[in-house]
Each structure stands twice: as structure tokens, then as C-alpha cells.
């Protein structure tokens, strides 16, 4: 009885731990892109944009949210103010 009241609560934080690890490790074990692809991706994105607009390196903001089903990569680029 003692065990029964304690068990569900214990199991839930352990379950959360398992899920967090599964999501993280699925990403870490290889999407085939290599672990350090983000700096390279940023470099390439900047290069493409610079062909058209002059932007600074820190004008690019990349956010990531890794999920079980989908992950999202959000890229914000601050463009220079138009000249008056």
C-alpha cells in the first residue's frame, strides 16, 4: 500500500526524464547532417542573403525547438533600415 501511493508520482518524473532523453538522443544520434551543421548553415544563409542585402553576422537569429514529431528552426534576419 505504501508502495502504491508512492509509485505513480515517482514514475511520472522518471517518465518525463525518459521522454526528454529520447527526444534529445534521437537528434544527437544523427540526422545525417553532422553535429555541427548549424554554424555552417548560418554561414551559408548569410552568404546567400549578402548577395542581395548587406547584413551583419549578428543580424541573424536562429532558434531551435526540438520535438518528438517535428523540430522547428526559426530564422530571423534583421535587415538594415532603408536609406532615406
Amino acid at each position: 500500500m505504501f508502495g502504491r501511493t508512492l509509485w505513480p508520482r515517482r514514475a511520472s518524473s522518471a517518465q518525463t526524464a525518459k521522454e526528454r532523453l529520447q527526444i534529445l538522443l534521437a537528434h544527437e544520434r544523427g540526422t545525417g547532417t553532422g553535429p555541427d551543421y548549424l554554424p555552417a548553415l548560418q554561414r551559408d544563409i548569410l552568404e546567400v542573403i549578402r548577395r542581395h542585402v548587406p547584413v551583419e553576422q549578428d543580424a541573424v537569429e536562429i532558434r531551435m525547438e526540438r520535438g518528438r514529431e517535428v523540430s522547428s528552426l526559426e530564422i530571423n534576419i534583421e535587415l538594415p533600415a532603408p536609406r532615406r
Partner: protein
Amino acid sequence: MTTELKQERPVGKIIVITSGKGGVGKTTTSAAIGAGLAKRGHKTVVIDFDVGLRNLDMIMGCERRVVFDFINVIQGEAKLKQALIKDRRLETLCVLPTSQTRDKDALTKEGVEAVLAELREEFDYIICDSPAGIEKGAQLAMYFADEAVVVTNPEVSSVRDSDRVLGLLASKTKRAEEEGAEPIKAQVLLTRYDAQRIAKGEMMTVEDVLEILAVPLLGIIPESPAVLRASNVGVPIVLDAPSNAGSAYEDAVARLMGEDVALRLDPDRRPGLMRRLFGRTA
């Protein structure tokens, strides 16, 4: 007359969380102290210096949002503000994760110095989560520190390693090398403190440890299942449901800020009580 009020820039204080020995609670402590300071409204950043074994992000619960890291910043592949992860619970809290794919040789003294200088402009407190050991990674984590929290468990190898680390803090750091600089203020944080095992004489008492290390005590964190629970869900212990370990960390944060907070857990009465209850075992 309209004079623009000059906003006072914080002069970030750098605090290293170190120990020598692994598994004593450095990362748990870095997350707890970082979150504890941020909870009090101080702009705080916690940096993971454990290159190759990224763990702080998991303990802080931001592992899914890591894009760039400390090493990317040092190597000029990303700007600092791109690598900083803002905590979703406390807006005064940020994490600077480390790289999982490189090794500690990717850290350079100049690189670390430049990043810390930039962080100092923006943050009140910069918490450095040191790797275990006494080699390069651990030495870089402590080199620029103003204060040190030496995380120690009440057992022989941990105390011995803490002693070595105290020696390094007093000799191999910027403050130690600079003529006329105040030495690093080092304090011991006793963690994984198990009153029952101390009562049985299996573990050293607070007095034993302090007598050997001869530095002030920042606090005593009990061994607690709440720590494991908090790490499972990725919440620093001071932000999780109230627990004795969480309160002990909050007290340690208060002392870190110079407040005079009495030790809540009275470990010296516990042994006597235990002895009376269970009979002497030691």
C-alpha cells in the same frame, strides 16, 4: 532640462562552482545557485565549462533549444547573444551551453576572457559550472573567478580533492597572479549531506570537513530525492516544488549575497538524536 539618466551597468561577479571530484553536485549547484540569484531579480548567466559532456542544459531544462554554444562563440562561429538561451521561467536567467562534440582544447584563455568580459557588461552574476578534475578545463573555469563555491561531499576523496582545488584557487588564478589583487573568496558547500550516515559515523561531520579545509561554510545541502526528481524534469531545484534541498540552496544563495542566515538543518543535534533513537553504531 532633460538629462538622460545613465543606466548603471552591472559589473558582473564571476563565481566558479568547482570541486575536483566528479559527481559531487557541481552542476546541480550551478543550476540551483543561478536560478536562486535570478529569482531574486539579479541578471544571471550560468556557463557550462564541461566541454564534451554537456549536462547543464538538461538540468536547466533547455536542452531542446541549444543552437550555438560557448565554443562556437569562442571560435567566432556565432555571436554571444545567439548562443545565450533565455530561461522560460525567469527572464533574468540565461544559460550558455557548451559543446558536446569538441574537447576542452577548444577552450582558450583569451577566448574565455573575451566571453566573460562581454557577459560582465550585461549580467550581475556569471556562474561557471566547472568540469571535474584539476586539469585545463577546471583551471580555465576558475581562472577569472571573483568567488568560488567548492562543492564537497562529506567523504575522504571529495575532501581531499577540494583541498587541492583550494590550492589551485590560491595559486593558479588571475587574482592569485595579479600583484595586489584580492584573493578569490572561496567557500565550501557541503552537499549530499546524509545526516543518518553521519550519525552512524560513516560520514564525516561538518566540523571534520571545515577543520580540514579551513574555509568558510556557505551551506549544507541534504541528500534528497527531490534533487533527482528536479533533474528528471529539467527544473533547477529552487524552482521546483518546495523541498529541504531547495530551501538549503536558497539559504546558500542568501549567504552568497552577504546575508546572515542561520543553518536550518542542525546536523550536530541530529547525530545525538539518531543515537538516542537507534542506539550507537559508531
